């Protein structure tokens, strides 16, 4: 990057919001994947006008611009693969308005998920998606990846809550999409276009989110299954039984073994462990739902079924699910948290596939997932310094996604495509779909300055 460009960037954001120090370039070279490339500079814009000026400059001088939230991406979304400029949105972190009357919150993109939750709590409202990285991830990042979490089956993902956006287009124009209304049929849905666009079409500078009342009561139960197919049938039956659990999570045998090897929790090493949660406003309501679930567990040969009587017991039932990531992260030096989704009835098939691939390629692939919406996370922990092990992981991943697509699934339920899945895009999307996506990219960003190289959208 030319010195004159750097000087201009400093003028736009002020010297205290500009850096090209080595330590910053290294910090911005990675997310939570193994993809890695340093940018040439980074800025912390403070308002929409600064973002607009930066993008105009980028379009004139043709350097890549990569917007970045908390960098917790598990698919390489914010890794500046072609250098250029990082646009760290962390200092645009104001909650601009919370209107309980209108059921919405207006926020800047750098607001941390948990900070919004805290601000909504006194009114018993919430922003439901609940991503696992909620303590650190930013709402701008949530929108750009269409993030989800354990509440997906009942409450959906980020896309179900974005009402309106302010977006700076690559040519510097400021676009306002959507409205502050709960519903609108007005024009093309430009809002949805930017949700999950991974920073390839524009830079989100303001977000209007629909917020939900938070049901005050929850109940939790856990069931173990000696046979994976029984667990799979239980999942399907629960989801068409007429009730919607607020969470329905699965932990597989390899995860349980890994947890037992690394802790003194002594979990039963069954083929599948399911945790279900129901929520509501009255005790009768949550009990009614949970009674249905436990009945289905038993009908499908659950080896054990446990109901939590209080908060501590509920926390205990959640331990296996919540410990899995930390335990897996400690098994070896490199971690791939994979992400896929299949139609719910196919959950047992995909879990069998993962287990078979682990055997075939001699890998450890403990798997957990949001069974209630068919979103599964195989977590591959391996020695990233061993060339042969890396190759086996790559082969297993490719085999896995071929099977996912064969089962009618999708490459990603909530982490996005980024760099990690870019090579697989055409597995899922046919020529027409890819052509339309490329046309959209060309329309918004003809010079390909915004987050180039992501989503397999080469112009």
């Amino acid at each position: 990057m030319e010195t004159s460009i750097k000087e201009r960037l400093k003028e736009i954001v002020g010297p205290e919001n500009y850096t090209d120090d080595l330590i910053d370039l290294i910090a911005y070279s990675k997310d939570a994947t193994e993809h890695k490339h340093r940018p040439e500079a980074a800025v912390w814009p403070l308002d929409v006008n600064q973002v607009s000026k930066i993008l105009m400059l980028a379009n004139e001088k043709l350097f890549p611009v990569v917007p970045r939230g908390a960098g917790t991406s598990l698919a390489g979304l914010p890794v500046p693969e072609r250098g250029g400029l990082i646009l760290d949105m962390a200092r645009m972190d104001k909650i601009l308005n919370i209107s309980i009357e209108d059921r919405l919150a207006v926020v800047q993109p750098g607001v941390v998920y948990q900070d919004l939750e805290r601000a909504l709590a006194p009114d018993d409202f919430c922003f439901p998606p609940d991503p696992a990285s909620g303590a650190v991830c930013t709402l701008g990042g949530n929108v750009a990846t269409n993030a989800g979490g354990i509440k997906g089956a009942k409450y959906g993902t980020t896309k179900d809550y974005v009402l309106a956006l302010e977006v700076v287009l690559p040519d510097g124009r400021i676009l306002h999409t959507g409205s502050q209304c709960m519903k609108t049929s007005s024009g093309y849905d430009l809002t949805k276009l930017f949700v999950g666009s991974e920073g390839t079409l524009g830079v989100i500078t303001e977000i209007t989110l629909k917020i939900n009342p938070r049901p005050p009561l929850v109940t939790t139960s856990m069931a173990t299954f000696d046979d994976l197919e029984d667990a799979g049938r239980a999942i399907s039956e629960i989801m068409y039984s007429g009730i919607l659990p607020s969470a329905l999570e699965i932990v597989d045998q390899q995860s349980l073994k890994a947890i037992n090897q690394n802790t003194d929790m002594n979990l039963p090493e069954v083929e599948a462990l399911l945790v279900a949660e129901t929520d509501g406003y009255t005790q009768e309501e949550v009990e009614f739902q949970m009674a249905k679930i436990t009945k289905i567990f038993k009908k499908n040969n659950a080896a054990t079924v446990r109901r939590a009587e209080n908060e501590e017991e509920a926390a205990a039932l959640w331990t296996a699910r919540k410990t899995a990531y930390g335990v897996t992260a400690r098994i070896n030096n490199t971690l791939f948290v994979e992400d896929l989704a299949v139609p719910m009835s196919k959950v047992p098939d995909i879990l069998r596939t993962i287990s078979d691939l682990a055997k075939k390629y001699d890998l450890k692939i403990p798997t957990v997932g949001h069974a209630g919406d068919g979103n599964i996370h195989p977590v591959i922990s391996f020695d990233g310094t061993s060339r042969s092990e890396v190759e086996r992981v790559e082969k297993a991943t490719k085999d896995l996604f071929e099977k996912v697509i064969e089962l009618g699934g999708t490459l990603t339920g909530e982490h996005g495509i980024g760099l990690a899945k870019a090579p697989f895009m055409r597995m899922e999307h046919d020529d027409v779909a890819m052509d339309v996506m490329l046309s959209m990219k060309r329309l918004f960003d003809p010079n390909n300055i915004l987050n180039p190289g992501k989503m397999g959208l080469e112009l």
Partner: protein
Amino acid sequence: MDVQYEFANKFRDQILRCSSCGFCRAICPLFGLTKRPALNARGKMLVLKEVMDGSIDLNDELVETLFQCTTCAGCAELCPSGVNVPDIIKQVRKDMVFLDSCHPVFKGMNKLLQEHTNIYGEDEPEDFERERNTPAEYVFFIGCVGSYREDEPTMATLDLLDHFRVDYTLIDEVCCSGVLEDVGYEINKNLAQKNIDLILATGAKTVITGCPFCSRTFNNKTQYDRLKQEKIKIIHISQLLKDFDPGVKTDKLVTYHDPCDLGRHCGIYEEPREIIRKIAPNFVEMRHNRANALCCGAGGGVRGAFAKNSIGMARRRLEEVEEIQAEVLLTECNSCLHNLDNAKLRAQKFKIYTTSQFINQLIESDR
């Protein structure tokens, strides 16, 4: 490139284990203040990975991040991969000092403790109107901040010990010099020897420290092993106070700041709360408390070397006091007290004390 740094020999596996998940952003006081990813644990581990694979050298360009860490261990507490960042940072600093890449303030601190007996280079110690170096059941070891910067809380603590009729003596203490281990150097053996000799000469079986960091140093550093061999017990004042009933109460809304050195580093969370609950029925926790407490920003040499950010971190901690509208903020560390007090704005009406200082004040106003 072959590994040539001691930090890589000792911690290579842990550093590689950092999966760059970024969860450390949630607690790192420096990141919270600056929003600069290069300064939090993930940024530091990424830098060290590049040093280990030979992409960059360990040199002055890295001082700003590797020497700017309060070693509060908040990140280590949260880390899913179990990476102990403070231990790694302390070793990296030693490697950097060896290469003569060091923050000048830390270099100065080491030099100061070669020439003086305390971190402030003060030649005239406070006498606190107490006897020194006399036979007693306990030695009360004040620490540098309590001796030279926060003498009022220290005087109040001594008055409280008198009130409880604790049989203690002060000694002609010198800096425990544990701080040098945090900033790339090693404990000054002469200073350690002087403290050991003075403690043993009193015949005391227990040392009570006013400073949790001194307590950690005496308990954990090999240079003080002699105390262990002589079966001298080292406790922090909060561990002693919990067994007393002050017999006074306040109706004020009181909260408590866990010092990193007492909480995360020693696991002492309940003792301070036990005594506070006796005197303050209106006790309320801040948003971040116990193992998840937010650092005051003073530790790891940051107050000396990066003063502006140190005060900024303390301000963020004080915002949490305002959030719960507490009238009194108590803590158990003179260094935290010093930094928080310096950061307090005039508009913030709450008061900040050490627990023993506050109890003593209640007792005195009760008289």
